[in-house]
């Protein structure tokens, strides 16, 4: 259905005299009818260029130069007129704000049908069918799209594409920016679509959970070249020793690949699990306790309590806030975060996480109660004054970029705080190195990839060198390397005494790094303890649409608390191997799914 042959794509140089930018350097692949290929790889590897090329929009609307051949449903997209693929191929992009522009849900879906000249009497049925396909049948048809949640907006964008009854779907980073619950809904919708319609799907995706759940094959790109191609099961579980480049691996895959690597093919059957369910199936029902076990084993460190006369970094007392009096967002929140603590803050959409964080930099003032930073009440301080102590990054920090070079962009924050001369230069150099931006220091940041722009924005916060760092979902949408850089910076700053408040939905990340996990629900603190103790309360996490990390789920469901010893998939794998559980005591479970 899709055939790409020796595709090369270059963009013009950023500045005269600079080299051309190579986005795709000669790639070839086929996607058979009804197949699903996931294209993944580090940010900037050429995924989106590939998606737009297959959709027939690049280079027409994007600029650049293309050689090679792209055939879609028997049509050579380079010689077809614009729009020729509209009723064959549906495209859904990452950003819903740029795709949903009509005043109501039904208008949004009808808009594409109107462009194709579909008989208006047929449109209501098309609209209903499309909404049902994405699970939005219960939403009022007259509701404006922008009032939907992020996950619903993406499903509406998908419905608008499906209304044209395409045979092919191109999904560009569909799961980007979605909370886990919304991502799970999207996966369910796409799985259902694959089972009920004969759709061919090409998805560019960074989220390994989405790839593992949907794709038949993975194509890993790096600098515009195919570096690995295979099935998710083989690549993620490391069954043939290959690793999918600089991309993330689902926790179950990390568990399997750690086990497989340790066994090194010495006669044991190999694990090939991609989900907790599969891991349980392959590991077997083990242990004597059934499901309700206590993973908080008492050896975990206690939370530091503020005391001994030192003011905590952040103190919040009886904080209440509402944008509209009838809709309180924060309800009587009190907490103290001691200096030097690494706190993860999580919760469902609308729980009040971002609203709480905005109080810490003074962008919002308490409706009631107080917020103090290092002993100073924020009510009397300007945002600029608080910025001396609090480095704050919004959900999409890359929108703040405006300087002509990466170096200048990073210098903006520290310069505003009064840093000059050698101190400023040193702060910039450290940030450039820390975020891997040294070679791009003179590039205009606006033309860089999404991931690099986000790293530039975070490097700008890093260079401010504040004693408190508050970040709102900084790793969302970043590739594995980008996530590693951000977390390495935070770990390093934490090691030097900084207080970290990290808003995240990623429980694996919280498990690895946080000393304390706060769960907000409905504007109140639903849990506040060590991550291990919070993970032992799955009901609290479920309220927030979250699940405990893989190791905890495996430990709980297999009845073996030891597997959650360090809360990581690798730790679970090492424990399993060290205790001789691979063969004999636990066996390999009921089924050796991936024996190779």
């Amino acid at each position: 259905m899709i055939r790409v042959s020796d595709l090369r794509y270059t963009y013009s140089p950023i500045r005269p005299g600079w080299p051309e930018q190579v986005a795709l350097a000669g790639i070839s692949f086929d996607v058979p009818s009804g197949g699903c290929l996931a294209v993944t790889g580090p940010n900037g590897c050429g995924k989106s260029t590939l998606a737009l090329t297959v959709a027939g929009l690049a280079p027409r609307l994007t600029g650049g130069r293309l050689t090679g051949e792209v055939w879609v449903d028997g049509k050579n997209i380079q010689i077809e007129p614009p729009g020729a693929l509209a009723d064959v191929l549906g495209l859904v992009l990452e950003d819903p704000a740029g795709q949903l522009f009509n005043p109501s849900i039904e208008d949004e879906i009808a808009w594409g049908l109107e462009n194709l000249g579909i008989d208006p009497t047929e449109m209501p049925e098309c609209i209903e069918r499309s909404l049902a396909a994405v699970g939005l049948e219960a939403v009022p048809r007259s509701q404006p799209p922008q009032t939907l949640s992020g996950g619903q907006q993406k499903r509406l964008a998908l419905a608008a594409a499906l209304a044209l009854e395409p045979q092919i779907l191109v999904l560009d980073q569909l799961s980007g920016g979605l909370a886990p619950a919304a991502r799970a809904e999207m996966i369910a919708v796409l799985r259902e679509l694959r089972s009920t319609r004969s759709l061919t799907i090409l998805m560019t995706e960074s989220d390994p959970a989405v790839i593992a759940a949907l794709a038949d094959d993975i194509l890993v790109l790096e600098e515009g070249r195919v570096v690995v191609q295979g099935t998710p099961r083989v690549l993620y579980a490391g069954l043939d020793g290959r690793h999918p480049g600089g991309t993330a691996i689902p926790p179950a895959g990390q568990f399997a690949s750690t086990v497989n690597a340790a066994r090194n093919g010495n006669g044991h059957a190999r694990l090939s699990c991609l989900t907790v369910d599969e891991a349980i199936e392959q590991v077997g029902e083990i242990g004597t306790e059934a499901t309700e076990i206590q993973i908080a084993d008492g050896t975990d460190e206690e939370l530091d309590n503020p005391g001994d006369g030192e003011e905590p970094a952040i103190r919040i007392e009886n904080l209440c806030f509402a944008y509209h009096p009838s809709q309180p967002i924060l309800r009587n929140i009190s907490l103290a975060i001691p200096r030097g603590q690494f706190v993860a803050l999580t919760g469902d959409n609308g729980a009040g996480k971002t609203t709480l964080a905005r109080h810490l930099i003074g962008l919002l003032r308490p409706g009631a109660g107080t917020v103090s930073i290092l002993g100073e009440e924020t009510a009397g301080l300007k945002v600029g004054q608080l910025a001396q102590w609090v480095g704050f990054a919004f959900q999409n920090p890359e929108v703040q970029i405006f300087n002509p070079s990466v170096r200048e962009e990073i210098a903006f924050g520290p310069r505003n705080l009064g840093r000059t001369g050698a101190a400023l230069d040193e702060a910039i150099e450290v940030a450039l190195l820390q975020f891997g931006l040294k070679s791009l220091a003179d590039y205009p940041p606006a033309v860089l990839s999404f991931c690099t722009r986000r790293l530039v924005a975070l490097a700008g916060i890093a260079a401010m060198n504040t004693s408190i760092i508050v970040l709102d979902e900084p790793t969302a949408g970043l590739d594995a390397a980008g996530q590693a850089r951000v977390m390495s910076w935070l770990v390093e700053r934490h090691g030097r005494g900084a207080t970290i408040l990290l808003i995240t939905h990623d429980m694996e990340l919280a498990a690895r790094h946080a000393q304390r996990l706060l769960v907000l629900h409905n504007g109140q603190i639903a849990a506040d303890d060590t991550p291990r103790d919070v993970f032992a309360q799955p009901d609290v996490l479920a309220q927030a649409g979250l699940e405990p990390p893989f190791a905890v789920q495996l430990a709980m469901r297999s009845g073996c608390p030891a597997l959650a010893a360090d809360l990581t998939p690798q730790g679970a794998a090492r424990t399993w191997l060290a205790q001789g559980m691979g063969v004999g005591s636990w066996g390999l479970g009921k089924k050796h799914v991936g024996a190779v």
Partner: protein
Amino acid sequence: MTTAVGVYMSGDSWLYRLDPRPKLWFSLLGVAACLTAPGPVALIGVLAIAHLVLIAGGLPMGKLGRLWRNLAPLVLVILILQPILTPGAGAVIVQIGPLRVTQTGMMLGLIYALRVAAAAFVALVPILTTPINTLVRGLQKLGLPYTWSMTVGLALRYLGTIGELYTTISESQQARGWGASTGGLIERAKTTVPTVIALIIASLRLADTLALSMAARGFGMDRPRAWRQDIHMSRVDWAAAAAITAGFVGFLIMTVG
């Protein structure tokens, strides 16, 4: 409950049900009235009619208040600067060094400020009360090519989004220690530069995404376009258009003739 989509506020009243063409006709003649009005009384009359239409058409008073708050800085700047920059002849009211404010200058400032406010409100009547796609269809039926009509519709649709983006970016810059200047007008204008440049970059990205997603859904295809819900001029619409025309003629007779 009303919901804002760009500048449009959802609602259900005679004004919302009116075909977009009489409303666009009202705006066109209203702006013409503003340009021909000889003095402040006539302009206050136009402003009052626009308000009466919007209030009778069910637009929430809170929305009107917000519009005035948004418009107030521009009106104030005209009111203050016009008498100073173009004092004209006539009795001097205040003189500080070379700067003088005359009665004529004050009157001109008032007229220009009222003209801008009145023109803005009559122009907003169709925009505030017509869904974008209906407005686009209205413009197209008045002879504007579809791509142009859609461009106008999208510009109006994304005004709100761009406004939100401006706020987000401005807050991001503040969080990096960029404070509002307490200096003069030029100093204050300089503080918006980081926000405005970032806004332009972010808006261009948004426009890129929009163009791609529209093209993928068949925008610009060489096929006749269909309309799920087409618009038709009813007797009420024709009567409204006639009343608007008669009102404009009456206005001209009273003010010019």
